């Protein structure tokens, strides 16, 4: 809420060389031995009618970290993201093969309830999409349908906490009845984040959350992501290399439906193993 939360604390300035300056981020987090894997995708294949959108993707998402998915448009990173909360179910022609497990349990299993899954795996979209209802109603909707609040006071509590965590409370607390659509783009996106965390999910998927925002609003969202990481596992799709470098601990590079390279962000950006990843990061392709 206070500007301090959005000023870069230890975020390294973006450098083309990707040589990370000594950062305050605890690097030890990245070692597989100490990090539990929240989501694991194995041999994931996705087809849209006859288009093979994802090919044999094996990727795990570490918990309480930010995983960035990078790659050129149409490379399958959004498709991968949407597999994680089964938003692809909405597309009639979409077919998913392979295995995606959340805490070791297959989310495509027959007994997996989609509503339950989506309550655990929240999502923020590219274009801010608040409901054309009041700010309060936007945030209160999730807790209400899931019956998370016993009383109106409890609901108020959830709404205010969520807005506070999303760094929006100070800006909107006097106008909770104003339609969410009346806010600025950046505020709308933070409202959508508040709406997602109001359900208290374990994972938040973000599909290019800053692509429609100006740099100031982007900085706010990035600061927010860094704070949210302590409580949530975050997967973010981004077209901005700088953003991926700034906010993520793990990076996965997709190309033409295939996972080209994945690993600790620092390592991927400083010494990519794959030449395609190197070219993409350096801006030679993509």
């Amino acid at each position, binding site marked *: 809420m206070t500007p301090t939360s959005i000023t870069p604390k230890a975020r390294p300035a973006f450098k083309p060389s990707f040589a990370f300056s000594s950062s305050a981020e605890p690097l030890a987090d990245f070692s597989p031995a100490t990090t539990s894997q929240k989501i694991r995708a194995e041999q994931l294949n996705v087809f849209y009618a006859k288009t093979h959108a994802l090919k044999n993707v094996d990727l795990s998402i570490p918990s309480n970290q930010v995983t960035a998915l990078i790659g050129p448009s149409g490379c399958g990173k959004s498709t991968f993201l949407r597999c994680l*909360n089964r938003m692809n179910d909405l597309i009639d022609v979409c077919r998913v093969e392979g295995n995606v497990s959340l805490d070791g349990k297959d989310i495509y299993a027959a007994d997996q309830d989609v509503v339950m899954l989506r*309550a655990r795996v929240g999502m923020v979209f590219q274009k801010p*999409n608040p*409901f*054309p209802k009041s700010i309060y109603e936007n945030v209160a909707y*999730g807790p209400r*349908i*899931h019956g998370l609040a016993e009383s109106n006071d409890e609901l108020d509590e959830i709404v205010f906490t969520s807005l506070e965590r999303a760094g929006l409370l100070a800006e909107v607390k006097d106008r909770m009845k104003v339609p969410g659509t009346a806010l600025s783009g950046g505020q709308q996106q933070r409202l959508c984040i508040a709406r*997602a965390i109001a359900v208290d999910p374990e994972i938040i998927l973000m599909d290019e959350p800053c692509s429609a925002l100006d740099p100031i609003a982007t900085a706010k969202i990035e600061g927010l992501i860094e704070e949210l990481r302590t409580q949530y596992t975050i997967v973010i799709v981004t077209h901005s290399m700088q953003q991926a470098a700034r906010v993520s601990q793990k990076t996965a590079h997709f190309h033409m439906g295939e996972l080209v390279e994945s690993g600790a962000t620092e390592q991927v950006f400083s010494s990519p193993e794959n030449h395609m990843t190197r070219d993409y990061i350096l801006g030679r392709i993509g």
Partner: protein
Amino acid sequence: MSNKTATYDKIKQGLKKRRRSESRFRSIGIASISVGLLFIAILFISVTSKGYNAFTQTMIQIDVFFDPDVLDPNGSNKLESIARGDYRAVTRRTLSNTFKDVSSRRDKRQLYKILSSGAQFQIRDTALKNLSVIGTTIPVWVTASDDVDMMIKGVVDRKARPRVRRLSEKQMNWIRALESQGKVERQFNTTFFFGGDSREPELAGIAVALVGTILSILICLAFAVPFGVMAAVYLEEFAPKNRWTTLLEININNLAAVPSIVFGLLGLSVLLNVFELPRSSPLVGGMVLALMTLPTIIITGRSALMAVPPSIREAALAIGASRVQTVFHHVLPLAMPGVLTGTIIGSARALGETAPLLMIGMVAFIVDIPNSLTAPATALPIQVFLWADQPERAFGERTAAAILVLLIFTCLMNLAAVFLRRKFETRW
């Protein structure tokens, strides 16, 4: 550089042509709108100029002596016995007393004809409203006959030949005498608005048709809106897109184009013959109209749902709303203005529909205002149809007036559509 000038020259050459075609298109558009407006203006002017006369009715004031010997022979002064009195005799005697010089039977018969046959009932109502008038003489306004009415309103020329005028010279003299005493007046035509059908134009009213229409439309909406909206929601939001749903969609579009009389026949053979629902009733009429309106509501409802941005559905689903919750909490409310518009356009069409109602017997001669959904009734367009068939001149203006009422009704519904859409519209 010279190349560039050449390009510009080419563009310039084309510019004139483009501008010409633009102004040509604009003038064609304005012309076609003007023609449309012209015809609407002609329609309204002709209907209004004919119909407004029917909103007044010529009344004649006569001094009625409520003769206790005729009306209450046994002197009981009770409502039941007074209601059974011979008011025809009282009416005739009043007229004879007003024009004492009329003696021959032929002339008397002519004299009685200047009043409507309903006059005696108006006199009876006056007596029943206040029993103390029995035995006294009081002035009462009664309805003039339709021929007198037409003459007073100037629809028929006073100087026209008696056969055309349908009033003899003697009758004209009597009316002139009454006029000179200020006893002939055009008053607001309450009978037209509150009365049922009648063979006498001066006693005919649109109440049965109006109530029948209102009840039918309510029934129509009660059936068509829930079924139509649910069908639209299912087809748009839940049904898989396959060959069967495509076939269904084509058939719904076809249904919207089916001649309305076919729906009437369906109502006749299924609702009346199989389910044996009451003939001529607004219930059956409304159901038939609902069948007719249903495709319109489904089609407009689907396009309204389709227009709701998918991002709203994604937003709700991503929070963990079920599909039903997504539709009913977010998508349908946003589609509501469109659904409402479709509903009202559909029912405005149903409002003016005649053919299907003919088939289920709403074309009857009904005098009593329907007091239930199963009571026989008729509808406004049918009343127009029935009256337009009548030879009496006075029915002509009543037909126009009924059309006017129907048009006003339609306009009100369309206004309601605009109002509701404004009210439910969401700004993004």
